[in-house]
């Protein structure tokens, strides 16, 4: 199978869905001729023109609401927010409008809309351009939250998100754009709400997603030399959450660690653990563990930034501790 970059997988998904459905269009900052500051929309403006690949003013609330108005009147907008952090400028539109309109209207509105954004630390972008705030969105009824970690998942999930008749928060990661992965030439999509076992193992279950998942995979690889077999699960969408795949894995391993790049306090690990305790408590043979970023803003300095979120060493140590229980 051919290998392509995460960024190009996203680009292909957008292009294919735009070719398939003329109601699909994309709007956002610098996505036109510039191709997006991360290159996700490269060459789409040349192919589809201003009508369907539309640069916006720097008005996040304005153009997210614009996407909503278009969605409830028959179109399928894909709205790009350059940084996840910028969603905070537009939270009224996302939380009070986009997420709630269907329910408030008694089910009489459909909101087929994707809000793409990228976020997370690792690139030296400091506190206002590096946050991992997926849990903010997961808390809101009416939104689905997709957060792919590989090129294959990115393409298949973006295609499914564009075809979805509900609003989807689609969270990419700056540090993943250049990563390569196997992506088939032929058509496929990945159903939202289905986890993927990224590595099978028998001693401990580790749940992680997005960029942080790759730290977990490296830790799992290295621990094999110590005779520890780690099963790595990527939920891929945190809402809806495929808790069954996680519970099934715990039946086998009896041990659970969750690792995310978001701050530990109030992070999504807490929700997953709560569900596991409610539904699979008796399959656990050790206390559950979670690793998240320190409860600080993301610092600029490289050493400080790396120290802020879980490292491979910290993940390995947490797994060793679990296995010694």
């Amino acid at each position, binding site marked *: 199978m051919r290998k392509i970059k995460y960024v190009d997988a996203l680009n292909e998904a957008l292009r294919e869905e735009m070719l398939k459905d003329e109601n699909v269009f994309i709007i956002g900052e610098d996505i036109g001729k510039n191709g997006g500051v991360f290159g996700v929309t490269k060459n789409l403006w040349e192919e589809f023109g201003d009508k369907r690949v539309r640069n916006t003013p720097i008005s996040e609330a304005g153009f*997210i609401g*614009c*996407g909503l*108005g278009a969605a409830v009147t028959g179109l399928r907008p894909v709205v790009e927010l350059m940084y996840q952090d910028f969603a905070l400028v537009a939270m009224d539109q996302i939380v009070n*409008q986009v997420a709630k309109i269907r329910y408030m209207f008694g089910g009489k509105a459909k909101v087929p809309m994707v809000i793409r954004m990228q976020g997370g630390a690792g690139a030296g972008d400091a506190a206002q351009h590096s946050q991992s705030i997926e849990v903010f969105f997961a808390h809101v009824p009416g939104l689905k939250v997709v957060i792919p970690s590989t090129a294959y998942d990115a393409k298949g999930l973006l295609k499914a998100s564009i075809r979805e008749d509900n609003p989807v928060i689609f969270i990419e990661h700056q540090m993943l754009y250049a990563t390569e992965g196997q992506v088939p030439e032929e058509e496929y999509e990945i159903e939202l709400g289905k986890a993927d076992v990224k590595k099978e193992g028998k001693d401990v279950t580790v749940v992680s997603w997005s960029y942080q998942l790759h730290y977990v995979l490296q830790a799992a690889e290295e621990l094999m030399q110590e005779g520890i077999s780690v099963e790595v699960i990527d939920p891929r969408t945190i809402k809806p959450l495929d808790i069954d795949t996680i519970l099934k894995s715990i039946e086998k391993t009896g041990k659970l660690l969750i690792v995310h790049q978001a701050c530990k306090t109030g992070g999504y690990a807490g929700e997953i653990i709560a569900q596991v305790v409610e539904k699979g408590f008796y399959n656990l043979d050790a206390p559950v563990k979670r690793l998240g970023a320190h409860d600080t803003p993301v610092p600029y300095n490289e050493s400080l930034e790396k120290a802020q979120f879980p490292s491979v060493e910290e993940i390995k140590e947490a797994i060793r501790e679990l296995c010694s229980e």
Partner: protein
Amino acid sequence: MFDNEQLLEVLEKMWTIRKFEEKAAELFTRGIVRGSLHTSVGQEAVAVGVNYALNKDDYIQTTHRGHGHVIAKGADIKIVMAELCGKATGYNKGKGGSMHVANLDMGILGANGIVGGGNPVATGAAFSAQYRGTKQVAVSFFGDGASNQGTFHESINLAAGWNLPIIYVNENNQFAISTPFKTVSKTKDIADRAIGYGIEGVIVDGMDFFDVYEKTAKAVEKARNGGGPTLLECKTYRFVPHSKADREVYRTKEEVNEWKKRCPIKQIEKLLIDNGTITEKAARELESKVKQNVLDATEYALNSPEPSLDELTKDVYFEVVE
């Protein structure tokens, strides 16, 4: 421009809104309408004048003070009242209430509980019309309070930049709850803000149906023919308190009474009596007829079933039923 029959229709529509609002306020006092209620008594000419200039398939989105706008767009007062009473027969199945009345089939993109929250959404409907090449236009109603929200500025700038078919109808009733506009802004006329965005801003007498209609019709024609957005500032006044717990310390009885002399309903009624279309007696009969319609609507709402409890978890997401 209007024949007398049309004017009678206008009069009836304005009375319908007035009587509906008065009844809704009564139901609110009796605890039947819950939460908050914002009525538009005194502002009927804006609702009816703007909507008279629209086609059925044009879009409107409105505010927390939006009953009049949706009724003027064609919503059935029975179903609006049922929604206010939280009944299963309401437009939103009782899940929205006063601040969220919507009916997409009529181009009503909903009232909105967040001041200024609807301007971007209406802008998107206009974008959609332009994208699909339908010749529809969108109207966004918003108050003087919302004109100080960022979303107003973002929306109007974006619509101007993209030449979208939209009319921003500012209903300037002069108070954001208790805060007079002039105490929080140096802008004399909100219409002037259009200049900053390179579009036309028009001051409208919001108490005068004809002025509202004519200026809206002109803006609609321009938008439909690719001329882009217009900002209309309709200067108007609410004759009633903002909502509950409003002691109206921010204005005098004299000021309210001065504005009441310019009641938009009485203006049309007087015109029709003076030109011999109706007698004073016929005018009172029309008022009574409308009152009865509102009573019937209220009866319908009160007798309607409550939503079943399993509705609680429905409609959060669209789900494909296999």
